[in-house]
Structure formats: structure tokens, C-alpha cells
């Protein structure tokens, strides 16, 4: 965002002391303590583990939608599914699928910004890789990273024209 130079004259600042804070006093101290306590972190990590199965199910449903959109030529639809996958995958233990989906999102986003043609061969490779990574019996992160890197390099070459 480009700020106008005349803001020198038009800006007002409300100091922290002049508006209500969400917590104060003893509650603030207790919350600060809870946020850094080992017990809280342990309880939160337990939540993460418990929710992992639900997250995996959700990721797989988005992967099915991504596969269905593969040949549609609809960049917006592909982006929407890949975006959900990149946001959820790591919480489902599918780190590689998330990284590859992130690469697809970045490619589509950049192509849109440059008003460049989206290469279907590139998006197909991304979709296939996301699909394989999300159905892998173990999350081979190292291999997934290599795939993500290669695909990102291919996408960059395509964008460079």
C-alpha cells in the first residue's frame, strides 16, 4: 500500500493506555504464565494429535476435489483446493503434500498477477504429486521436499517464459 505524503498532517494516534485491553492485572500474569507453561503446551500438543485424524480426512477430501479440478482448466478452482490443502496438510501429518500444494498456489497466484497463461502440464504435475504425497503410507518429507523443489523450479521456468 502506498501511503500519501500528506499523512504527515492527517494522522492521529491513539496510545495503548487510551483504549481497553483484553486482559490486565492478575489475569494478565496468569495468562502469560499459562502461555509459556509446559503443562499447557503438553495439553495443546495432545489436542493436535487427537485432531490429526480429522484433519487428514479433511485434506483427503480436498485432494479428491483437486483431482476432480485437474482437467477443468479453472485456475481459481485449483487454487481454492490447493490453498485448503496447504493450510491443513501439516496438521494432518502430511507435510510434503502441504509443501507441494503451496508450490501450486504460488505458481497460480504469480501467473494470475503476471496475467500469464497457466500451463496445464505444470498444474497436472503438481496435482499428481499432491495426490501421491497425501496417500503415501508414510510422509517421506525429504523426498517430498525434493519433488516440491523440482516442481517449483519448473513453475518458475514456465513463468519466466
Amino acid at each position, binding site marked *: *500500500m502506498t*501511503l*500519501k*505524503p*500528506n*499523512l*504527515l498532517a*492527517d*494522522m*492521529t*494516534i*491513539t*496510545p*495503548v493506555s487510551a*483504549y*481497553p*485491553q*483484553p*486482559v490486565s492485572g492478575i*489475569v*494478565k500474569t*496468569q*495468562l*502469560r*504464565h*499459562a*502461555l*509459556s*507453561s509446559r*503443562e*499447557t*503446551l503438553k*495439553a*495443546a*500438543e*495432545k*489436542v*493436535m494429535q*487427537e*485432531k490429526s485424524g*480429522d*484433519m487428514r*480426512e*479433511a485434506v483427503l477430501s480436498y485432494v479428491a476435489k483437486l483431482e476432480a479440478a485437474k482437467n477443468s482448466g479453472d485456475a481459481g478452482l485449483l487454487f*481454492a483446493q490447493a*490453498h*485448503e490443502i*496447504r*493450510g*491443513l*496438510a*501439516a*496438521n494432518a501429518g502430511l507435510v510434503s503434500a*502441504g509443501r507441494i500444494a*503451496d508450490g501450486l*498456489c*504460488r505458481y497460480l*497466484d504469480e501467473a494470475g*498477477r503476471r496475467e500469464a497463461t497457466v500451463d496445464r502440464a505444470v498444474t497436472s504435475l503438481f496435482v499428481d504429486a499432491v495426490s501421491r504425497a497425501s496417500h503415501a503410507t508414510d510422509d517421506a518429507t525429504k523426498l517430498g521436499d525434493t519433488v516440491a523443489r523440482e516442481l517449483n523450479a519448473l513453475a518458475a521456468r514456465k513463468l519466466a517464459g
Partner: protein
Amino acid sequence: MSAPTFDHLKALVVEDNPQLRSLLRSLLHALGIKTVFEAADGESGFAEMREKKPDFVLTDLSMEPMNGLDFTRMVRTAEGSPNPYVPIVMVTGHTERHRVEGARDAGVTEFLAKPITTQNLFLRITEIVDRPRPFVRSETYFGPDRRRRRAPDFTGPWRRREDKAGGIEIQ
């Protein structure tokens, strides 16, 4: 000794994905915040804001029909907003620079990139609690001060009366 619960602290989670909504609610519960309201998009989020008056908000960016940016702008600037100063953490998978800047310019307090990690979520809440920021109102913006750090080598352009160029205060 049992962990404390924060009975008077109210959070609002605005997220269209039910699994993520549930994850965020459960993480807040684990922290001791038991009162967590939920909404699936910006419009219903704003309705919850008005009715429940939460102390802080976690919101997604991409939602239909009203996304997290419009929701944030509404909270910050709409007539009838119950608390334009409420801390808003935007939780999103959009990591592209222009989208992050868009969120910042809508008036978001903190930005939390997906995938969610416990550490990052708690860090953002810690920031809200420990480092509240002044609010800035200009012709084009109302929200937390977007300046987060001092940049002694910055040479302009100068936008505020308090700014200094080469040790000289800008008037």
C-alpha cells in the same frame, strides 16, 4: 495444582473450515480459555462480535460470502462496531507477500500462518497480551500501528510528525 481457567476471557473464532475451527477452539480450551464463540464467515462473525463482545478474535482470510479482510475492516471502521480496538489474529495459509500486506492494511493485529502450530498460536496471543500497539487513524487506514520495529537507517519518506530525518524532527 490444576491449570488456571480464564472465565472472563472470551474468544471468537471465524473460520469456514469446521476441522480448523474445532482445532482452534480446542487449543484455546487447552490454554484455559473456555468461552470460545464460533462463526463460519465474516458476516456471521460480525454478528457474533456485536452480540458476544469477545476480547480477541482469530479469523481466517478466505471465506464466503464475507472474507476475513472485509470482516476486519468492518470491525475496525463500521458504525456499530462493538470494539474497533479488539485484537484480531489472522490465521491463513496465504503466505504471498501481497496478501500478507493486504491483511496488515485491513487492520489485522497479528498474522498467523497455517499450518497452525501450538507455539506460533501461543506466541501471537502473547504478543496481544504483552505488546499491544497504539492505533493509527489516517485518511486511508484505521488499525494497529503497522510499524513494529525501529529502523535507524531508514531515510524516508517521512509520514509522521514524530519522524526524524537525520536527527531533525519532521514537522
